């Protein structure tokens, strides 16, 4: 039991250290960007309500706002304070958007949309890619398999926002089948138990999801196929053939099962990167997820919100790798713990 305990402890330590390291890099990076968001915000308020505030009052207001946002004092001071707030009290501080609404609330409002859209499409594309990749890896020498693998090789590196643009053109404007903007029909009451609302949510997700799935499938398909090809050369499969087992049986029981393990790692990683990768698809479809939120945060240089979103993506990615590291040795006896 001992090596397992020390393995888990080192991994956990590495996990925490990496989060802290990446967070620190991001913190100083964003704070070194020149800009004075508070004055810009106050000026915008003045214009909005056509009021003029005299210089002394404005300075006092700015100081008060900075204090509430936690961006007063020297940079190291801000850093330690922010670190303490985030990691001990899970408090990101207020955001500029609807000041003083907490940044965390903004994130929690948008997170479900991103998770629903991108999580679902990542899983769908993984399943599709895995099954089709397994099949064309087993039956390699026919036209359809050759065509599929070459097609996937060609499209696998095309960014998903291009497929998004094509989908938008084809189904949104040419055939006018699907809605082009937003996440649900604004005319329908927003209620999770209203079947019409859920239907419209699904309908609005089809196009952006399709864009992500198309490219995602290609990647999984290529790697599954190459895994299956290697597995097919192994001795135990020759034995299975010699026993006279049916090909479909061999495919399900021997090939796909063994290809599953590395591919599950891949799935976990791509789920981890869900928050990183698809800002642009969301922005193209005006989807109210983390991508659009981040964009507005950047425009206002809203430090608390920006860092909150970045921290969230960092944590999710690292958590995915951490979980893989923890569970792989339990599932796969070939992995030795002292590696």
């Amino acid at each position, binding site marked *: 039991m001992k090596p397992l305990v020390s393995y888990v402890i080192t991994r956990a330590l590495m996990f925490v250290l*990496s989060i802290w*390291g*990446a967070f620190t890099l991001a913190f100083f990076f964003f704070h070194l960007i020149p800009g004075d968001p508070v004055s810009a915000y106050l000026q915008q308020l003045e214009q909005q309500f056509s009021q003029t505030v005299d210089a002394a009052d404005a300075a006092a207001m700015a100081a008060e706002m900075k204090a509430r946002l936690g961006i007063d004092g020297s940079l190291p001071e801000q850093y330690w304070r922010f670190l303490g707030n985030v990691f001990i009290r899970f408090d990101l501080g207020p955001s500029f958007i609807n000041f003083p609404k907490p940044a965390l609330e903004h994130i929690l409002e948008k997170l479900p949309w991103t998770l629903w859209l991108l999580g679902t499409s990542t899983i769908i594309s993984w399943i599709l890619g895995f099954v089709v990749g397994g099949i064309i890896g087993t039956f390699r020498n026919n036209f359809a398999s050759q065509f599929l693998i070459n097609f996937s*090789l060609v499209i696998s590196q095309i960014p998903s926002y291009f497929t998004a643009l*094509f989908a938008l*053109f084809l189904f949104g404007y040419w055939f006018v089948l699907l809605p082009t903007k937003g996440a649900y029909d604004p005319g329908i009451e927003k209620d999770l138990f209203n079947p019409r609302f859920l239907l419209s949510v699904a309908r609005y997700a089809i196009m952006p999801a399709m864009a992500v799935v198309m490219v995602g499938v290609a990647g999984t398909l290529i790697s599954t196929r*190459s895994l299956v090809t290697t597995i097919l050369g192994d001795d135990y499969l020759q034995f299975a053939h010699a026993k006279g087992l049916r090909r479909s049986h061999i495919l399900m029981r021997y090939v796909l099962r063994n290809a599953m393990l590395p591919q599950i790692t891949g799935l976990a990683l791509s789920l981890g990167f869900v928050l990183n990768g698809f800002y642009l698809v969301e922005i193209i479809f005006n989807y109210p997820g983390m991508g659009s939120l981040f964009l507005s945060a*950047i425009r206002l240089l809203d430090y608390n919100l*920006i860092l909150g*979103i970045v921290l969230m993506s960092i944590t999710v990615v690292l958590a995915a790798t951490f979980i893989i590291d923890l569970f792989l040795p339990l599932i796969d006896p070939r992995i030795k713990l002292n590696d």
Partner: protein
Amino acid sequence: MFVVDAWKRSGYFRVGSIMLAVLLAIAVLQPWLSQLALQNPDVSPMSMGTFEPYADPSLRHPAGTDKLGRDMLALLFLGIRVSMLIALIAGCTATGIGISLGFIAGYKGGWVDAVLRTGTDMVLVIPSLPLLIALAAYLPTISIPVMSLLLAAFAWPFTTRIIRSQVLTLKQRPFVDLARTSDQGDMSIIFLEIMPNLLPFLGVSVAVGMSSAMLAEIGLQLIGLGPASINTLGLMVQQSVQSGVLAIGKWWILFAPVSCLIAFFVALNLINIGLESAFNPRLRSVTGD
């Protein structure tokens, strides 16, 4: 030479390099091609109101004109040139950084390796697009070299990883041991013994660096936070999305730059696959050769 080998061995490489060569030729010949398209040496492809806006494709304007009355074909040539230039500078810079760090980490090993690897992984974990957006939004002016270096700053971790893992396996090989026992210095081992074996991987990492720079550049432009003064293909995509050309049925204005970019990505990807399958026998099964 590894390029010739790859050409002989892989059909993917042949198709990819022909596509890239065509794009490169357009980029190099752009000044001349653009005059041909504009039929007026005094007009720049960027200057507005030269022609009637939103003209349909015709003999005079094979790709039509855009909202600002610019000839799309001439603009496209310019876009290919600028995007190619940015991608090349960024790809080569990223590869340069990647080679240096990858070599140091892989060759030195020990704590140096541990530090460099952790650092690289951390940079990989931080979402790069947000950082780029932030940088671009708050830099006062962005020229082509600045833009390229910015993009390179986020494209190097991948190269570092490829080079490091290759150096790790290569330095275990007998010929490196032989060189070491015959008292060759580190530098001479690195450049004379290990580096020649890495040339195909350098090809791969330049290609990957170029496409990830391109990817980031388009990302930046699509959001509308990229520099509007540099006419990249990404900017052309953004401008046509912005002016809603799909909604008014002028889809070719959007699809001209998009198809060029897709051609670019596909070319680089095919070159990658070709190089990998020609020089990495373990990956040969990927393409089923």
